[in-house]
Structure formats: structure tokens, C-alpha cells
């Protein structure tokens, strides 16, 4: 009874978090899939306990790695917004004395403090290598859900932890989450606007361009091998396509603007705004910079394309009605439909990788705020309120989170929130201002 109830609760929460349709496991052990429609974005976080790991040799270094692994695991799962991490001070558990395997765990000790899920771990150091055993338990069911063993170099600690996090999130939501993704953004820290990138959680930000000029609008290709962006490094706004493995770049430097690249999902093609015709129009280009065709054909500004996940449609910004608004165009038919009608300044659309929503920045009472709407323009939900300017929304690869740029604390910085606007937090602190975030696809396929 308890088991079924919990499972239902877990799935319901996961479904809520995942917007629209989500896979629901049936009550039998045989997995049956069922799509449920969720209209209530109520969030109930799953209480999760992540005690410190057990370690065999108990050397200083091993303990340090062990503790930092447990902390990283807890922080990474908390980052998703699905969990409430329980305070270790309340645990009736000693990682060194008590066992971490199913028969050794007293599940009542966990259910009594409210934990519904428990992750135990052990870490063993041998030379340069570490071995981790990680297990996810359902405390009410008193059963192990996932058990994994990872061996790697010490430097792989983050990857090992994040592999396991992916397993956990995949079990709960049906999708591997964001743990293998990166976020590219623009920062003025060096004195110029340059492109940077960091891990999904803000870890290890590093500078990707050294153009000593204005660089803007980073865009990851679906396979993560290329980064397109605009830079003034040759004196005017040109488009560059950087092969991340080989350092070589393709340049698109037609007369006028060469801006706002957006890769077609799964293809070596991208849309971008070029103004060589005298009008700012969106073109489809090959990844090597050749124009395939012009996509928009109306006098006025057409900018900021963003693709539906199937690559059959793109949303973009146009001022054809007199003010900047979001439109959607069908690639094959060329048919265009206006999506936004509220307000007179709606820009920076970003199509959710799940396909059901489009996030954009809307000027509301003189300030920019993040709004999410259905792909048909219905069901508007404003996610930021009374917190400075909030702009450039970028979906995480699983559609559960949105990165954006905000000046709520003074300078523009990168923030992250859930798809329903909860858990808004700063991603990282750097010198200068950070803007234009773009989330990469998830590199982990498991």
C-alpha cells in the first residue's frame, strides 16, 4: 500500500515538474507508459537523504574526496528542483559504522525523519583512482532502486557523481536530466564581451573566445561540437562557427548584420539574421556558412530564430506589426503565425526541447520579464516578477529548468529557475556582467 502510494506521489511530482506529458509507471512491476496531462504546476519536493559516504582506508585524502563527493551528489540533485535535501544533523546514521547495503539499513531510521529517498555511497581510493559505489533506496518500500559502481581517476569525480545523478533523475522522470550539459554565456569580465562556458551548475567557468571585441549570442550545435556566435573582431558584426575540437572557425561576414545564430536540431545547419539585402531577414545556412535559402520575406526586422525540436518550425521576432513580437513560421509551407499579443515588446524566444513551450522576454511595466507560453501562443505564465530586468531565457536540455540573465542584484548575472519559475537562484559569481546564456544538449546519453 505504502509502496504504491509513494510511487504514485513520486511520479505525480515528477510529472508536475515536467510540464505537459510525462511517462507514468504503472503500479505493476512491468513498466507501462501512460501520458497524463498536467495543468497544475504545484510543486512538492521529494525529501531526500544523502548521508556522508563510507570509506575503507580512511586516509585524509580519501575522506576529503568522499565528503566532497557526498556534498556534490546532494547539491547536484538539489539543483534539479525536484528534491528537498534533509539536514545531515538529523540522521540516525553513522556512515563509518552502519552498513550501506539493503539488509544493513534500518529504513525506519530514515522514514522517521521524513526521508522518502535515500542515497548511500562508499568511496575507495587506490593510487590515482577512486571507486564509488552509489545506491538509491526507496525508504518506505525498504528496497534498493538503483545500484552503481564507478571507477575512474580522481579527476573524474564530478563525472562519476553526475552519471549517478542522471540515473536517479532518469528513474524518476524518464529522462536523464541536465548533468552532462553546459551553459555558454557572454561576460564582460575581461573588459570586452567574450563568450564563456561553464558546467550546468556554474562549475568551472572558462573563457571560450579571446576576440578583444564585442562577442555575442553563443549557440551550441545539437552534438555539442560547434559553437556559433557573433563577434565584431573584424570590425563589424560577423558570424563565426567554431569547431570546438579543432579551434578552427568558419566566418560568415556578409555586408551588414550577421547575428543571432540558431542550430537546426540534429543537423549541421543553422538559421541566422543577415542584413546584406538591406533588410534584416532570417536565412537558413549550412554549418560551413553557405546560404541555403532565405526564410523570411517581409520588410522590417526579422531576428532571433529558435527551432522546434523536430526542426520543422521556427519562432522568431519581427516588428512587421509595428512592435517586436514573437511569430512562428512553418519551414516547409512558409506559413507565419503571430504568437504574442500582450505588450508591445516581446523578444528573445527560446523553444523548449520538449516542444510544448516557448519562453521569451516581455517588457511588462517598463521592465523585462521572463514569460512562458504554449507553442500555440496560449497559456501565458510570467515567471519573474519585481526583480529588476530578466531576459534571454534558455531552456535546459530536459526542459525542466530555464537559465536567464538578470540585474536583480545590480550587475547582470546568470540565474536559473525551474520551468514554473520556482527556485530562482544565481548560477555563478564572476567579475563584470553576464548575459545571453544558452544551454547545451545533455552529453550523457544514459
Amino acid at each position: 500500500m505504502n509502496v504504491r502510494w509513494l510511487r504514485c506521489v513520486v511520479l505525480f511530482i515528477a510529472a508536475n515538474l515536467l510540464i505537459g506529458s510525462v511517462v507514468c509507471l504503472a503500479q505493476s512491476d512491468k513498466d507501462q507508459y501512460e501520458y497524463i496531462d498536467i495543468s497544475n504546476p504545484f510543486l512538492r519536493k521529494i525529501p531526500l537523504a544523502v548521508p556522508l559516504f563510507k570509506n575503507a582506508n580512511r586516509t585524509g585524502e580519501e575522506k576529503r574526496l568522499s565528503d566532497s563527493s557526498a556534498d556534490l551528489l546532494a547539491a547536484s540533485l538539489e539543483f534539479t528542483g525536484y528534491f528537498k535535501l534533509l539536514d545531515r544533523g538529523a540522521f540516525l546514521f553513522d556512515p563509518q559504522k552502519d552498513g550501506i547495503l539493503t539488509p544493513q539499513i534500518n529504513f525506519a531510521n530514515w522514514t522517521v525523519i521524513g526521508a522518502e529517498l535515500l542515497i548511500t555511497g562508499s568511496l575507495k581510493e587506490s593510487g590515482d583512482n577512486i571507486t564509488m559505489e552509489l545506491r538509491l533506496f526507496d525508504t518506505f518500500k525498504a528496497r534498493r532502486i538503483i545500484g552503481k559502481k564507478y571507477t575512474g581517476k580522481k579527476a573524474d569525480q564530478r563525472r562519476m557523481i553526475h552519471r549517478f545523478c542522471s540515473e536517479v533523475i532518469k528513474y524518476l522522470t524518464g529522462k536523464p536530466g541536465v548533468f552532462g550539459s553546459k551553459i555558454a554565456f557572454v561576460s564582460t569580465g575581461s573588459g570586452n564581451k567574450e563568450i564563456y562556458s561553464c558546467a550546468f551548475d556554474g562549475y568551472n567557468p572558462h573563457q571560450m573566445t579571446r576576440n578583444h571585441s564585442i562577442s555575442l549570442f553563443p549557440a551550441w550545435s545539437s552534438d555539442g561540437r560547434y559553437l556559433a556566435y557573433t563577434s565584431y573582431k573584424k570590425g563589424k558584426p560577423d558570424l563565426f562557427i567554431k569547431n570546438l575540437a579543432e579551434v578552427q572557425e568558419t566566418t560568415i561576414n556578409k555586408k551588414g548584420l550577421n547575428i543571432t545564430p540558431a542550430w537546426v536540431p540534429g543537423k549541421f545547419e543553422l538559421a541566422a539574421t543577415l542584413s546584406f539585402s538591406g533588410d534584416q531577414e532570417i536565412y537558413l545556412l549550412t554549418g560551413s556558412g553557405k546560404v541555403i535559402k532565405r526564410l523570411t520575406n517581409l520588410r522590417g526586422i526579422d531576428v532571433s530564430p529558435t527551432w522546434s525540436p523536430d526542426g520543422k518550425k521556427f519562432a522568431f521576432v519581427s516588428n512587421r506589426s509595428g512592435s517586436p513580437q514573437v511569430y512562428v513560421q512553418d519551414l516547409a509551407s512558409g506559413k507565419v503565425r503571430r504568437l504574442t499579443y500582450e505588450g508591445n515588446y516581446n523578444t528573445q524566444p527560446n523553444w523548449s526541447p520538449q516542444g510544448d513551450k516557448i519562453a521569451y522576454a516581455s517588457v511588462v511595466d517598463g521592465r523585462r520579464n521572463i514569460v512562458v507560453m504554449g507553442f500555440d501562443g496560449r497559456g501565458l505564465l510570467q515567471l519573474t516578477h519585481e526583480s529588476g530586468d530578466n531576459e534571454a531565457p534558455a531552456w535546459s536540455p530536459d526542459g525542466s529548468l530555464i537559465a536567464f540573465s538578470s540585474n536583480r542584484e545590480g550587475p547582470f548575472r546568470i540565474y536559473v529557475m525551474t520551468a514554473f519559475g520556482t527556485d530562482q537562484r544565481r548560477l555563478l559569481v564572476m567579475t563584470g556582467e553576464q548575459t545571453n546564456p544558452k544551454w547545451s544538449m545533455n552529453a550523457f546519453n544514459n
Partner: protein
Amino acid sequence: MQKKKWIFLALVLVIPGLMFSVSCQKKLVDASPEPMAKEEPKEEVVVKEEAPVAYKAPSIIMQEDIYFEFDKAMLTPAAQDNLLRKAEWLRENSDTTVTIEGHCDARGTNEYNLALGDRRAESAKAFLVDLGISASRLTTISYGEERPVCNQQNDECWAKNRRDNFVVN
């Protein structure tokens, strides 16, 4: 001798000036079918007072920015007046080329603003070309909101940033 020189100088300066003002009149009407709200009447006063001086240091006119309304690339009457004077100078100095930089205020978002700045620069270029300035002498570049002249968040500052800047090469 001295007197003759002065007369000659006056003719050189005044006659082309008169010609330009006549030839431009019609264009001005064409370009602004709908009269817009007056912007910065102060500027016009300054123009009248300093008109003779402008010929002694002609590049001053090129250093003046022209201004736009929010989310607009249309030339205001004041901007058109200013461009008429720039056209005069450009005719006088036919060996020069000019880069027209389009700029925006920071209230919008930078993708759209780059496109808007492009249109602002192109508006000025098209107007000057209509006045007979060769298109090959005029290049445009948009900086969107990336290079503000004023960094405060108020109306006055935003108005200063919504501009075309002219760089004589």
C-alpha cells in the same frame, strides 16, 4: 584686391549653400509625410547662429549625432534638418567617406536592438543618398545597445543613446 577676395569667398560659400537649400526642400517634404512631435528646438537655434562658423570648421556638423524615438528608425524632423547640413558638408568634401553607426538604448534586448541599430544607420544613409551623396561613400554599422554614450537608466540618458553617430574616415 583684398575686397575682391572677400567677395569671391562669399560667393563660393553662399551660392552652393543656396543651391542646396533649394534642392533639398522637396526631398524633405517627401521623406516626412507625417510631421512628428518637435524634438530639441534648441538645436535649430544653434544651427542658425553658427551657420557661418560651420564653414570655417566644417566637421563639427559631422560630429553631431541624430536622435530617434524609442523602437523607431524613422528620421525625426530634427534629424532630417541635421542630415541636410551633413549633406552640404559631404558635397563640399567629396573626397571623404563616412561610417554611420546605429545605436539603441538599453531598454530593449540586444538581439533586436542590433537589428534596430542597423535600420537607424540605413535610414540616415538612404536620406543622404536621396540628397545626392554617393552610396559608395557611406557605410553603415550597427552597435545595437553595446556602445552607450550614457549609462544611467533614465529618459534623458536613453534618448542620448538612441542615435546615429557619424565617423568621417
